[in-house]
């Protein structure tokens, strides 16, 4: 009985340590302005964790210039090698399995001079597998199912955030279209009227009595 009590206490201490070091899920959904390079760091706790996320570039007000070419995303592992890279997109989803635990670097690179606002979302998901189940006797198989359910709901939430960010960008584009339409059309009318007025004024001047070759 005494030994059983001691073994339970030992396992609970291990669990406390495991809890202090571990965290099943974490997320960040934010937006930053990228001038040249902006890097954010996320810590991946377990090797083999699925790191998923998305980012959408919300263009700053464009009135005269053409669309922004897009920004690049480079994900670097703690070892220094590139795990994932996306070039010249205006928004995309990404997902990869972390080859090792550690601090991962997500860098957004803006090739243009105009600052762009990027709204991104990074989620690190961990599902306990059989190895974790065997190590820790307090972890039920039902915890695995709950973790899978949680990860599935997280993927739905992530997709919703992506759709919301894309909708913001779409709305931005539509409002810009509307502004440009009204402004350019009014300018066109004005230019037409001015050109016609100038034409008439010039022709009148040509037939003016005071002009030299008209004097009879």
């Amino acid at each position, binding site marked *: 009985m005494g030994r059983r*009590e001691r073994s*339970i*206490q030992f396992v*609970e201490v291990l*669990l*406390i340590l495991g*809890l*202090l*070091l571990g*965290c*099943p*899920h*974490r*997320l*960040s959904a*934010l*937006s*930053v*302005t990228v001038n040249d390079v*902006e*890097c*954010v*760091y*996320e*810590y991946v*706790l377990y090797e083999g964790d699925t790191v998923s996320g998305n980012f959408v570039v919300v263009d700053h007000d464009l009135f005269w210039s053409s669309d922004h070419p897009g920004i690049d995303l480079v994900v670097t592992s703690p070892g220094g090698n590139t795990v994932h890279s996306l070039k010249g997109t205006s928004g995309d989803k990404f997902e990869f399995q972390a080859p090792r635990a550690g601090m991962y670097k997500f860098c957004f690179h803006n090739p243009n001079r105009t600052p762009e606002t990027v*709204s991104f979302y*990074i989620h690190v998901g961990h599902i306990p597998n059989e190895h974790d189940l065997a190590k820790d006797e307090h972890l039920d198989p*039902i*915890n695995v199912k*709950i973790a899978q*359910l*949680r990860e599935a*709901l997280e993927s*739905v*939430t992530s997709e*919703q955030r992506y*759709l*919301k960010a894309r*909708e*913001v960008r*779409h*709305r931005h584009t*539509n*409002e810009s*279209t*509307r502004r440009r*339409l*009204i402004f350019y*059309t009014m300018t*066109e*009318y004005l230019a*037409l*009227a001015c050109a*016609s007025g100038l*034409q*008439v004024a010039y*022709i*009148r001047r040509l*037939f003016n009595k005071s002009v030299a070759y008209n004097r009879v």
Partner: protein
Amino acid sequence: MGPGRRVGGSAGLRLVLSLAMASLLALPARSLRFDLQSGQTKCISEDIKLNAMAVGKYGVVNPADSGPLPDSHRVTVRVTSPYGNSIHFAESVELGNFAFTANEAGDYLACFWTPVHKPAATVTLEFDWRTGVAAKDWTNVAKKGQIDLMELELKKLGDTVKSIHDEMFYLREREEEMQDMNRTTNSRMAWLSFLSLLVCLSVAALQLWHLKTFFERKKLL
């Protein structure tokens, strides 16, 4: 040392453990981090819905892991609402937190800046901002209801599903607004192009009429 006392001791420890696990699920040990150069300002914004809870925690990462940080490694923080009201302001601090309920829907901005320092120092800032379901204080929920860990997890999942449902309604509303706007832009473009043709023709007709009367007056026609 009787059986009752032993059982009581392990049950108490289990409750503490479940609370610790719940608290860690609510506020993880690590979060997003980014670098700040001396004198640089970085702003992070998040779109928060009306009456949603938001909780934020920030801190300067100490590279040496010991001793107090010098003055150059302190940050000034300001959190502003979409209409410009300052929600949280802290000057020259190493760490802090803030919590608020969103009275206005829109983009909330959290700006960090460090004082200018002659040898340019890079400050690593750790920032954790959670809104909605993740911002809820699950330790209190666990304590109040005296529920076990699995039920807490399932409660969290239930709240997440509800927030997903609400978000779908919101997206649907926004899409409807945008479709209306697109439709009016479409009809407006058709009207304005037709009007431009009218303007062109009427200007040409005016020109011709004016020049005809001008030349008739000058007895050239």
